[in-house]
């Protein structure tokens, strides 16, 4: 016979009003993140490698000429990329914190225009012939789905299921960031899960910690109740 157990139920009920609702949010957001595979969220299926086989691997000796022209370079790559409508071997140069492409014939830097980006995006894009609805160079005010550290960057939107957006490096046209609606959903779930409703990165807010402590109490009172209920015998068994 139980005599003093009502207090746990009262506590459990009142905690449920505060902590319980957040626990439901944790359960729902957690379930979304767990049920949907992470590579899919990352959009691995959206793109493919677009750089081709080098036309002339011997072009590697041009690295010395690139260094002579750009003495601050600390990392030089030779790649085969579609530029100005044709595939060509070009140098990709890291100089200081800059990254840019260099024409191997003229050793002049290459400027990518919206048309180049559109062509590259179509090569990266793996989901068929869905039309591109927008190509723009973002220089400030990034959308919430993009970290400001990526700026400036090209954004290419596709009209497809999931509203894919591909972000290409401003100077090199490299595939940099993939976004689609499942990622955006994941981001909302992540925000709800860590309770940082502003920047979605801070996992140390005092209210998150408070709710976690509340959850301990909530789980404790609930455990007591379930043990009590399962142990209690109906008084008059048939």
């Amino acid at each position, binding site marked *: 016979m139980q005599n003093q157990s009502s207090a746990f139920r009262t506590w459990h009920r009142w905690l449920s*009003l505060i902590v*319980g609702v957040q626990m439901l949010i944790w359960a729902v957001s957690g379930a979304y993140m767990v049920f949907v595979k992470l590579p899919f969220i990352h959009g691995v299926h959206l793109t493919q490698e677009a750089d081709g086989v*080098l036309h002339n691997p011997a072009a*590697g000796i041009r690295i010395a000429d690139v260094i002579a022209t750009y003495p601050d370079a600390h990392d*030089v790559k*030779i*790649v085969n990329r579609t530029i100005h409508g044709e595939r060509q071997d070009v140098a990709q140069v*890291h100089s200081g914190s800059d990254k840019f492409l260099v024409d191997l014939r003229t050793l002049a830097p290459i400027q990518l225009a919206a048309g180049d980006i559109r062509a590259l995006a179509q090569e990266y894009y793996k989901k068929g012939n869905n039309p591109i609805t927008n190509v723009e160079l973002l220089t400030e005010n990034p959308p919430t789905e993009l970290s400001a550290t990526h700026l400036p960057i090209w954004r290419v939107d596709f009209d497809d299921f999931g509203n894919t957006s591909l972000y290409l490096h401003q100077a090199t046209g490299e595939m940099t960031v993939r976004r689609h609606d499942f990622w955006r959903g994941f981001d909302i779930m992540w925000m709800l899960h860590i309770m940082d409703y502003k920047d979605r990165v801070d996992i140390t807010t005092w209210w998150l910690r408070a709710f976690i402590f509340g959850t301990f109490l909530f789980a404790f009172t609930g455990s007591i109740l379930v043990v009590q209920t399962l142990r209690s015998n109906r008084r008059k068994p048939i």
Partner: protein
Amino acid sequence: MKFLQWLHRWTGLIIVLQIVLWTISGLYFALVDHHGMKGHQYHTAPQSINLDLGHAKNMNPSWWNNFEEVRLLRHELVLGIPKLEVHHRGGISYLNGQTGEPWVTSENLAKEIALSTYSGPGTPTRVTPISTSRELHDWQGEGYQVDFNDDLNTRVYVDSISGTVLDHRNTPWVVADWMFRLHFIDYTGGRNFNNLVIVAAGAVTLWFALSGFILLVKLLASGEMRFTFRNAPLWATVGANQHKFSERAHKTVLQTLQDNDVLVESGCGGGGSCGLCKVTVNGTAEITAAERDLLSQEELSEGIRLACQHRIGKVQNVEVTEVNAQKHSLTLVSSSFLTPMLRELRFLAENGEIEYSAGQYMQFLIPDGITAIRPCDIPEEFHSNWAAIQDGNFKHIAVRRSYSMATKQNGNELVFTVRYQPQAEGAKAPGVGSTYLCNLKLGEQILVEGPYGDFTRMAGDTRKLFFIGGGAGMAPLRALIQEELSSKVPREMVFYYGARDVNELVYRKELESIAESKKLSFVPVLSDALTDSDWLGERGFVHEQALTYLSSVDVHEYDFYICGPPKMLSATLSMLANLGIDQSRIRFDDFGN
């Protein structure tokens, strides 16, 4: 509602441990933050060094012309040594930019590479060649572990083939890694939160949280969670005592009683799921869904409610049955057949006299075990009744069974009549409680809990007592009659007792001798007596015979006490209802058989 409670309870039981683990690891993440978990406390990006024209001019295309399908050529410096990275059909190759030979990382170079990414206070103490590491989940190949003697036990892993730093690890990282294992239920160290185990756990948790949430919404809608600082009174009659309690008006009757040390039975602690905290409400009280499930129509119409379901703001006057139930150990001192299927068991209470009122019952705590189906001492004359029951044993679980005392309180002796319940058609075994008790040997002990029950005598000097019983319902009625006879001025009593045949007229002689003293009118009624037998008494159903009697007297002079098999009980109750007897003048016990 019941299903949701069930779902919430069981999913909770399954998942509670993981929820605690999620909470612990979640708390850790919230306290430590990202940068505390990466192992990068002493990590820094290596300084980039401008490429050297001399090295570049020295490079020769013949070094990489043997590779097929070259996609990328990359040139950088590793601690001043030129390195050439070639992506080709066979994978990625790293060449020394001075010789064109495959890149080689010596122990010393590995130490230098490690140092180039290290910003801590320590120095490298040991360089160990490795091919795998528990701390690098997806990596295997050729490499080095470079240990540093700093406060975090930093180790830097270097890949030999590419001459690059794989990652930094340290003690906080190990703790964080375990937290990730707990949080993602991935004990391989892969930090994969799409694995099958966590998907299953997530599904259970979702149901658990959803059911809890719906229960909460229902609770809010029902107004059960109202809160107030206003006080409200509760008048409670407990046994013979009157109390007035004052508590916050949102408290339930159960909470108020328990807070004031009034014992009320409760199995679930106020959840409305066990149905034990019965009280009688004086005045009106609405009937909740839980009460509709757990209380009988009769109880509801008598004003019986569950104390956990009502707030003292609404219900202010209740009667509470005094509970002085305790566990007692009884020793069997005699056990004998009274009728073919009914045994009288006499026990002595180990710890002296147990106070109880006639009509109350004890709950027997039948332990689990293996019990014989047939008792070994069936008297000769009853063998024919037992002919159909096979010998054998059956295994049973522990159960609780209730039996009424068959006498008034009498020292430390307790008497019960137990009706043997043979195996019913379709049932797996005979009645557990009755079979166990019928097989109990003299001197054996058993635990009982009690006394319980409110099937006790009603007050009123001028009232007459009318008992209607059948079968094993004899026990509490006999006790009530004994108790009445022992009062100073016994009131007038009538006892209609139904049985199948003359063999089943238990305690007949005793009752007939009481009847001779004119204090009791005892009328046995047989339902199955053979027409040619020498039975001269009443025949038929006991409630019909009682009705014949009652139609010639003033029924309103009587209080009614009924105990017997379910069919008899319900027939009798509807008979009394037809006569217009006030509900409050009827007491019955439906567990006496």
